[in-house]
């Protein structure tokens, strides 16, 4: 498992449309014109205070300072996401890569075939829809926000 399986910097970020809530969908193309952070992660409800999504929630002002949107993606269904987002008071969308399972994660090289859930993988996409940075984290390690912040900092203004 290495960084090489992920779509690399320079590749166009594949467009997709996924449900963010039971009756609303979000397409990557909706966000064109600003940097986008995609955070693929294995599953909602890991039993830790400072889990990855909660951390990004705390860091939201820092991402917004770059004009960037952040979006979380896992194979959990929309109702699971709704409950998780409510519990963690998340203020950014969680997308359900639910049907077909992991299809979007596969486009990005971020799907764990045998396990049936997403890798813990981060992408920073520039405002033109090109991947500027990608990073594969070991499943057991929360990669934090420093790589994302550095990548956002290095985007052309």
């Amino acid at each position, binding site marked *: 498992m290495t960084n090489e399986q992920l779509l690399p910097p320079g590749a166009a970020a594949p467009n997709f449309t996924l449900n963010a809530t039971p009756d609303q969908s979000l397409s990557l193309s909706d966000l064109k014109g600003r940097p986008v952070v995609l955070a693929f992660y294995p599953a909602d409800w890991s039993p*830790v*205070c*400072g*889990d*990855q999504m*909660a*951390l990004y*929630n*705390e*860091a939201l002002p*820092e991402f917004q300072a770059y004009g960037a949107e952040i979006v979380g993606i896992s194979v959990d269904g929309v109702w699971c996401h709704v409950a998780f987002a409510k519990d*963690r*008071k998340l*203020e950014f969308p969680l997308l359900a890569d639910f049907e077909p399972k992991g299809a979007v994660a596969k486009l990005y090289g971020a799907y764990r075939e045998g396990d049936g859930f997403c890798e813990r993988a981060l992408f920073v996409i520039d405002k033109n829809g090109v991947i500027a940075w990608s990073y594969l984290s070991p499943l*057991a*390690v*929360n*990669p*934090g*926000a*420093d790589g994302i*912040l550095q990548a956002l900092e290095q985007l052309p203004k």
Partner: protein
Amino acid sequence: MQGDPRAPVILVEYGDYQCPYCGEAYSIVKDVQKYFADKLAFVFRNFPLTRMHPEAENAAETAEFAGAHGHFWEMHDLLYENQDALGPEFYLAAAKELGLSGEELNEALRQHAFKARIRSDFMGGLKSGVNGTPSFFMNGKRHDGPFDFEPLVAAIDAELRASAYARTAGH
């Protein structure tokens, strides 16, 4: 900082006063400090998860207020020993116990006098790779294992060996 700044290993914890895992880590860190004595210095930096923990910011500001009057560590300890009680009445009582002015504390909290300092800790933490609370760094390297006594000791031991090697090898 607790301990000698020239100690071979500096342990930094990024913590949130309302986080139960940090509450657990609190007594473990004390045991680790006893174990390593003067080989270890300890620094606590603020990383409040304010959206999850409603009192995290106020507790942190209370500790920084106490710190401005030379009582940081006593307040830090009082907060962790009374996590269930965190709230305006407790901060007042704790300030009084440390001989600090309750009025001054309330004014500092009202004005968020220490908010910028805490935000600066938080930003520094984010940029250093803090990924949750508690987050530990030994000589600047993030500890990715569990924060029980043995794994912390093992990581600090490894850092002691590495720094001893660096010294004898003339780096």
